[in-house]
């Protein structure tokens, strides 16, 4: 009996220990909770992206173009708004841009191009479009009514965190409690067998990439609002942070195993660690010493990188919880 409990718990031992350590670190340094919640804003955006990315990775796919879709959406919003359209119209049009980007990805993948290559190409394409359309300039002076979307809170909870939780919950339902979700796992486990079992493989994959485009546009709106300006290099590198959250949580990059619960864990670990390390890089006064202790930027990078690899190896060793 004990051995079964241990075996079930094993996959979570290391991640949860790390999580607890990071949480303790943050908690020991917090004097104003609201300020800490503010530090979570970028992680709310990454976390939201990590939800649909989880589903994509579960099918054995990947989407490298999310960062570029954010850049293109951000620029599109700025340009449309500058033409004199109201914020609501501009925002709706931006979601349309995300939909179009996602459709391009879906079409390429439906043609049979490997997702890694297809989204590598569109990553360059969308980023290039964002640069070309904006001439590399930021579009500032967005109205307060808009910037509030990315800077305000609701009952003390930053909008980004609300967005994350809402999207996460929706994705959790879809991936773990619908027919569509079952198809996602089946495709990732054995794509050929899924076709033979009458799973609409192409349709499921296409829907995921299109959904990711729309989500990227949604995140781009919040991102743009937070920064107060539309920027052509918005979201640069965010795809790698997003994928890191998914992988650290324990979803296998080759598909078929993992899930939204694991991604929640991944986002929690990555964000707490990042925020905790930001405190450490300021200066920490530890009780047992008079000399303040400080961690450098390099050590942060080393820690985060080692964590990604270490947890990936750990998850691979203990990947007993598979599928549903």
């Amino acid at each position, binding site marked *: 009996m004990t051995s079964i409990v241990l075996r079930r718990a094993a996959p979570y031992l290391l991640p949860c220990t790390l999580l607890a350590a990071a949480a303790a670190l943050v908690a020991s340094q917090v004097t104003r909770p609201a300020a800490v919640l503010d530090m979570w804003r970028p992680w709310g955006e990454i976390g939201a992206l990590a939800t649909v990315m989880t589903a994509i990775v579960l099918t054995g796919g*990947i989407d490298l173009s999310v960062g570029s879709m954010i850049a293109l959406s951000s620029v599109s919003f700025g340009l449309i708004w500058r033409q004199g359209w109201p914020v609501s119209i501009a925002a709706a049009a931006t979601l349309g841009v995300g939909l179009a980007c996602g459709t391009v990805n879906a079409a*390429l993948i439906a043609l*049979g*191009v*490997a997702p*890694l*290559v297809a989204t590598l*190409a*569109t*990553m*360059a*394409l*969308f*980023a*290039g*479009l964002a*640069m*070309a359309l904006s*001439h*590399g300039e930021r579009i500032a002076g967005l109205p307060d009514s808009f910037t509030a979307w990315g800077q305000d809170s609701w009952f003390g909870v930053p909008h980004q965190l609300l967005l994350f939780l809402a999207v996460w919950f929706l994705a959790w*339902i879809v991936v773990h*409690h*619908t*027919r*569509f*979700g*079952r198809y996602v*796992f*089946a495709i990732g*486990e*054995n794509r050929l*067998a*899924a*076709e*033979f*079992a*009458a*799973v609409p493989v192409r349709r499921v994959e296409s829907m995921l990439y299109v959904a990711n485009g729309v989500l990227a546009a949604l995140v781009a709106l919040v991102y743009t609002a937070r920064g107060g300006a539309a920027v052509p290099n918005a979201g640069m590198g965010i795809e*790698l942070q997003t994928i*890191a959250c998914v*992988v650290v949580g324990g979803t296998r*990059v080759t598909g078929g195993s993992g899930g939204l619960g694991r991604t929640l864990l991944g986002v929690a670990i990555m964000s707490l660690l990042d925020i905790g390390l930001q405190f450490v890089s300021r200066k920490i006064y530890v009780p047992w010493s008079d000399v303040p202790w400080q961690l*450098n*930027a*390099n050590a*942060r*990078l*080393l820690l*985060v*990188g*080692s*964590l*990604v*690899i270490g947890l*990936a*190896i750990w998850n*691979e060793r203990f990947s007993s919880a*598979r*599928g*549903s």
Partner: protein
Amino acid sequence: MHDATVPLLELVDITRSFPGVVALDGVSLSLAAGEVHAVVGENGAGKSTLINIIAGLLAPDAGQMLFCGRGVSWANPVEARRQGIVTVHQEAELFPTLSVAENMALEQGLPTGAAGWVRWRQIYDKASRAVALLGEPLDIHESAARLGVGQRHMTQIAAAVLERARVLVLDEPTSALTASETDWLFAQIERLKSAGVGIIYISHRQEEIFRLADRITVLRDGRRVWSGLRKSIDRGQLVQYMVGRERADGLTYGLARTPPSRLASRLVVECVTAADGRFVDVSLTARAGEIVGVYGLVGSGRSEFARAIFGLERLDSGTVKVDGHARTIANPAQAVSAGLAYLPEDRLRQGVFRGLSVRANCVLSALRLLTKSPLTSVSRERSATLEQIGALDIKCRDIQQPIEQLSGGNQQKVVLARWLLTRPSVLILDEPTRGVDVGAKAEIHRILRRLADDGTAVVMISSDLPEVMEHSDRIVVFRAGRVAGQFIPAETTPETITVAALPTAPASDLPAPAWASRRGFRPVVRSEMALAAALAAMFILLGLSTDSFFTVGNLLGLVSSAAVLTILSLGAAFIILAGAIDISLGSQLALSAAVTGIVLKLPYPAAATIPLGILAGLAVGTTLGLANATLSIAGRIHPIVVTLGTMTIYRGLLISITGGDTITDLPRAFTEWSSVQRFGINASVVLGALAAMAAYLGLSHFRWGRHVLALGSSPTAARLVGISKARTWLLAFGAGGLLASLAGVLELSQTGAMQSGMGTAYELQAIAAAVIGGVSISGGRGSVLGVCLGALLLSSIYNAVVLWQISGHHYALITGVLLLAAVLTDRAWRKLEG
């Protein structure tokens, strides 16, 4: 001929089991020189296991193997091959992106000289001789993907003949051959026999066995049931041994039941023809309550027919009616809603989801029927699964158990349950009892009969003649893509069916394979020509539109700035060719440059620090690449995850050693060497050219380079010929790191400064250049020339942006469009190749 004192090859009491099945149970076999020893048995009798043990693919659990009287145990297939045991498998594993000649050579290990220098002349000579032996006009430089199945076998057999094998194992060699090819094969076998080669011959075809064999061994259910000289057995006895004496004696084929014509027709297929011509004008009817057996050889069109009816392949013409309604079935989902179900022939690849639970496997195709809403209902799934487990007597601990823990027979029953849950009118089964133990086999047959009795029309495809004879009410025989006849089991004999299924004039009967008509340039050459044309067009456009393009200064600037990207792209290409990916190359470049920079700043004379610094940088780059490979192999994680982590780690290390400061004021001798000009070219260009040359030599002329391509082309085939994945990846990642550091040192010299953001996102440009240059992202295909052209094209676009005074922001857009074009072209070519 049979008086040799010591047998050439002797197996003594070989036993081998797999989870749930004892595949071989104390089997002995002895092969003399100059003898053809036929091994016969039904599917699942243990023949393939036996071959795999002889070939070194499997190790026996117990028993002994003697080769020329000495006890042997093969560590891998290559060792068996070196000793002279050549096996031609029924399913040839190929390196699809490599040439026919190289495929032949890799089977035996590439012939090499000193330091692993590949002897291409020898490879081509041997391949030409093999092709000459075949007497077929076959291009040995063609990529192997274009060979038909028969041709694959023929080339392998020809290579084996030339190799002076001592033992030749042939597994169903004629299953994909035409009549004239078969005659050729038999002539070769006679030749080898007289040369003293021992041949183990596996075949279902009795004609061949009685024509060729000197000695016959019959296997049944993993045991040897008979062994002796061919002369001492006749065909009837052989069948009895294969099928089992008890069963054969009391067997009455096709029990009397309601005459099928009086039952309602459930499936009516009229005159269907496949879009790819693999079957023509096929009609078939299945009625409620009957089991229709479909018999035919591999490639006769029977499985293709079933897949097309089920919407997995395209039909050209003909009609399909299910329960009286005409249906257009374009995909499996439509087939399911029409009332069809199809149990695929290859359980592992097409049937089971190994890591998913029994429940998830069971309900997958019936989710739409279990609940109308898109939400799933675990309780209904559970009860449906439990119901099927009871009905089909599936043995499992728990319905949440992963299906891979079940025995083969139980896995097959779960897949069958998946289809029964869709409540089909017509159930099509393709080889339902292949790889299933005897007990489960009998149960599956009972289940099929019960389903038929309950009103389902069952269509059972099988290449197991006794199974078809014993368990169907009507037999439809496929031959060469057409229906060759219909038989009632009680009114016919196995011989009649066998004769009906055998191709009479196969060469003309068989539809010509689609690849045969396609000829022309090899794709790699084509992609390079397209690139060169694009580059030339770019240059002409630039030359016409600006005065300053064709100045020496501008061209030199273009080529030397291209040198860094070229070198880095070659590094990326090495890794992609090996079937991996490295997104930490930019960080590797920066960290190596930082190490070089730090050494250069040491307070010693420049004459000492410059060579030392460069060497240190290169050593660091190589180490970082090796570290990536080691982490991926030892940690068993995908290279993209490893390098996602190390790209951050290496950047962190960089900041640790530089403290985040920019390194400037490097020795002049260092910053100037890259732009030293001699004869109109500078050191950067020379370095780039040297790196390209070295990469070309490594990839084309050294054994390890060929192994990099072979591994990327097919990991499975690579394992079969003994190419170590660990060693090859270490080499590829090491080369990648070395080239990245070389690019870093060069950039350091060109810019004279190193800051911590150096090389950011370079890896994506490098991967883009490689893909534009025709490197296949799944590995195994690409050329150094293509990569260089790709890098040059990207650099010239950057140059154009500067010259045309377009805002630099269009550079990214053009890169994107180019990359997209490259991806789509690659896709189109691969589709053309089939």
